């Protein structure tokens, strides 16, 4: 035991303490953002489906710590944390959840369809598996244009059972594309466990017949995730070797905010949250190694609380999209014979009983 402690200590000593503190701050921000998001959903500030990253904070922050500004990220619909950890302020993210014009997608996408071109956050996608070929295509473009960087195709464990995933693996390896298949293995796709859905539950092995290297990683350990991502990222970029990362984490709640999670034993969920809380465990680790103290932790809690509250205030104060802008961004290249603002206004008035 002492030996493990020592290795951990020396490993931590090699780290820049500011980085470690920053990871903690980011994880706490995601945690609090999602807890407040859940609250806002219950208050009906947020509509549609809403999937939270609670329990997956280390997975997300570890990944983002390994990426460079050249890299691109495509995710599924459980992506609030990814776009924030990638550097988008929480305000426009919350505003998108609220359906406001100031949201990251102009209020047109919602929780499942966040996007930010500036940080190369290439979107949350809500058709299971749909983002995977897109990510491979982005990697194709990088290679074609001789640009640096890699592309992350994030997905859930359940997504490894859909055809698009396998076609993507084949193309990625066939054409040696710089793409990482980042599987957030939280054990469940909705109510279907990995064992119920996958004939090969060791998801990292699923690339074997495509000659794609795979690894299983502890997704509750931010440094383990970061290090594996860094290593495989470098190989992808330099050698065009795609890889599968099977990142095991624990989903704290049901599939989405409205899912009562009846299919998981409450005791399993309780003990899982107890054991696998990446935020609390990391705080304890930093504290035990004298990298942070109680005052610092308290200050972080206050800071994050304030930032998330400001995000909510920003979202609340933001304007709704205008009816006359219904058809804005319908097409990138203008084209005749499509409806415009006057049509939108007329149709909306009829719809609202105003004509």
């Amino acid at each position, binding site marked *: 035991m002492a030996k493990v402690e020592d290795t951990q200590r020396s490993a931590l000593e090699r780290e820049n303490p500011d980085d470690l503190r920053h990871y903690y701050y980011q994880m706490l921000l995601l945690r609090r953002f999602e807890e407040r998001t859940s609250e806002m959903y219950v208050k009906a500030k947020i509509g549609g489906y809403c999937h939270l990253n609670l329990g997956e904070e280390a997975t997300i922050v570890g990944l983002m710590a390994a990426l460079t500004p050249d890299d691109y990220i495509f995710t599924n619909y459980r992506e609030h944390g990814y776009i924030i950890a990638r550097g988008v302020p929480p305000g426009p993210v919350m505003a998108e959840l609220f359906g406001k014009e100031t949201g990251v997608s102009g209020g047109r996408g919602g929780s499942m369809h966040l996007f930010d071109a500036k940080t190369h956050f290439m979107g949350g996608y809500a058709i299971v598996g749909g983002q995977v*070929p897109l990510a491979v295509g982005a990697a194709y473009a990088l290679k074609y244009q001789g640009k640096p960087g890699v592309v992350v195709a994030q997905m859930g464990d359940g997504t490894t059972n859909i055809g698009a995933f396998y076609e993507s693996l084949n193309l990625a390896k066939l054409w040696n594309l710089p793409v990482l298949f980042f599987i957030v293995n939280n054990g469940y796709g909705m109510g279907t466990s990995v064992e119920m859905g996958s004939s090969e539950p060791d998801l990292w092995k699923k690339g074997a017949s495509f000659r794609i290297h795979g690894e299983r990683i502890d997704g509750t350990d931010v440094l383990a995730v970061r290090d594996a991502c860094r290593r495989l990222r470098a190989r992808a970029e330099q050698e065009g070797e795609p890889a599968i990362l099977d990142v095991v984490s624990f989903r704290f709640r049901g599939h989405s905010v409205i899912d009562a999670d009846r299919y998981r034993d409450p005791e399993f969920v309780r003990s899982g949250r107890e054991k696998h809380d990446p935020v609390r465990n990391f705080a304890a680790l930093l504290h035990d190694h004298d990298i942070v103290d109680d005052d610092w932790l308290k200050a972080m809690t206050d800071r994050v609380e304030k930032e998330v509250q400001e995000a909510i205030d920003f979202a609340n104060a933001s304007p709704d999209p205008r009816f006359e802008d219904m058809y804005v961004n319908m097409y990138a290249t203008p084209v005749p014979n499509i409806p415009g603002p006057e049509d939108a206004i007329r149709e909306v008035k009829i719809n609202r009983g105003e004509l």
Partner: protein
Amino acid sequence: MPVITYRQALNDTLGEELARDPNVLLMGEEIGVFQGSYRITEGLLQEFGPKRVVDTPIAEEGFVGLAVGAAMLGLRPVVEIMTINFILVAIDQVVNHASKIHYMFGGQVRVPLVIRTPSGGTGQLAATHSQSFENWFAYCPGLKVVAPSTPYDAKGLLRAAIRDDDPVMFIESLALYDTKGEVPEDDDYTVPIGVAEVKRQGTDVTVVSYSRMTAVAMQVAQRLEGEGISVEVVDLRSLRPLDRPTIIASVKKTNRAVVIAEDWYSYGVTAEIAATIQDEAFDYLDAPVRRVAGLEVPLPYAKELSAASKPSANSLIYAIRKVLEGKKK
């Protein structure tokens, strides 16, 4: 003006656009080494090399999705789907992804993608290889759908599609590949997307059609001229956006309309056009709009059955005579 085939017009345009813009690339099954299932890409691999002309494995969902993702980063992929029947395994990438990405993400990213594919039935290809699904895509806001009927339009619309920053479904027809028409040389013209054309002026009846059925309509119009029937032919050229004003202007002039398309009768393109005409030109109609479309069966293989289940020149003539019944000479 030189007279070339529809196939040649497509092949020339692909070559010219590859030469013009290094971000243009072709992808699809059998388009390179095999020279194209229907020889549309013949010679292009030799001329431009494997980086620009990419043979894909049989994985429509994978490579269509890949093309969408590549387009999001600035490439301009022109994907060939061997025939439109095979795009059904990639429809998620077209309908749920390509068509949504620009709007749904607040206009932050563009998808300059072209998907070329022949539609319709010919040569006893039977039930799974003879379908017309362009209406499925025309149904979907966010896509542009074009379907040229002549070599001239094929060239001008393909240029426009490749230079357009939106996803464009470019619908071809196996039966048109060998048809010929005038195409100017050294003329960088484009045909605008979303604009129909009156291909032939007439006064008695408007026939609305696109792609191969426009070719049929032109022949029929020629034939009926001898009988003193003056047919105006509106070639839609684009199914989305649909140029309703051109259709309506023609119907207001002739007061009678027949719509012909190869797809199935119920829920097909003809239904949309007929509804448009009753919406916007009801008071101008002297007869109900007639629709000519495919018989509602999985297209049978047997030669005569097969031919009889697709609309023909005869079915169009029959419909024209019907709408002209009672018209004073």
